[in-house]
């Protein structure tokens, strides 16, 4: 009887391509993961800017002129949404990845997230102050 019991276990197949579809928990994860596409594309925009910068003032003006276009605006808007989502999702995971034990107790997660948001605000303000 023993061998009959486990004779034919049934295996439920999972779709390799759309396992996340329609599952809010997995959809949120995928949204977080695809932010990398925006970041990847944007770093190449920065590299393009560096190249123009190295090639002199005319080349750089041409780069700015190319950027100043509907496509440039759309691209930057899309990337902005992507990177902000990246920042929020990244900071929200920090208490799990880097818990802090003070004395016996652990520092509450919201405090760790809050500290990251504070740092984010400071960094952003410094860049705005120096860059505008």
């Amino acid at each position: 009887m023993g061998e009959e019991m486990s004779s034919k276990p049934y295996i439920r197949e999972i779709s390799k391509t759309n396992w996340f579809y329609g599952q809010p928990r997995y959809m949120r994860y995928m949204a977080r993961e695809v932010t990398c596409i925006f970041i990847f594309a944007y770093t190449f925009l920065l590299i393009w800017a560096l190249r123009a910068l190295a090639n002199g003032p005319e080349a750089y003006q041409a780069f700015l002129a190319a950027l100043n276009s509907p496509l440039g605006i759309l691209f930057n808007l899309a990337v902005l949404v992507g990177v902000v989502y990246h920042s929020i999702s990244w900071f929200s995971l920090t208490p799990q990845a880097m818990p802090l034990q003070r004395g016996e107790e652990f520092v509450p997660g919201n405090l760790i997230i809050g500290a990251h948001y504070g740092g984010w605000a400071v960094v952003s303000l410094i860049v705005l102050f120096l860059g505008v």
Partner: protein
Amino acid sequence: MAKSNKPIVWGLFAAGGTITAFLLPVVVLLTLFAALGMTPDLFTYEYLHAFAANWLGKLVIFGVIFLSLWHAAHRLRITMHDFGLRQDLWIATTVYVLAALGTIMTFFYLLRI
């Protein structure tokens, strides 16, 4: 079971994820202004050139672009797998070669400034 060598790229992924989370939103906001025709000081030729001419500025620019590239490349590799593309060797090679190319380009452009 042998220990994995994933930590090389994961370390860069994690460091890059942190630096991009802190820094990129405001930088993208500035390039968005530039795209709208209101170029902020940082992205004018004179200012950016002066910043990149300084060795400390070079180091900052290189660090940010290098880590962003490797963060995004590694996460893209995982994302491809999540979308069901299982040719991991090819995908990994492609994204890491792109990141390496970006790194080399950044390095040489900075040297020329």
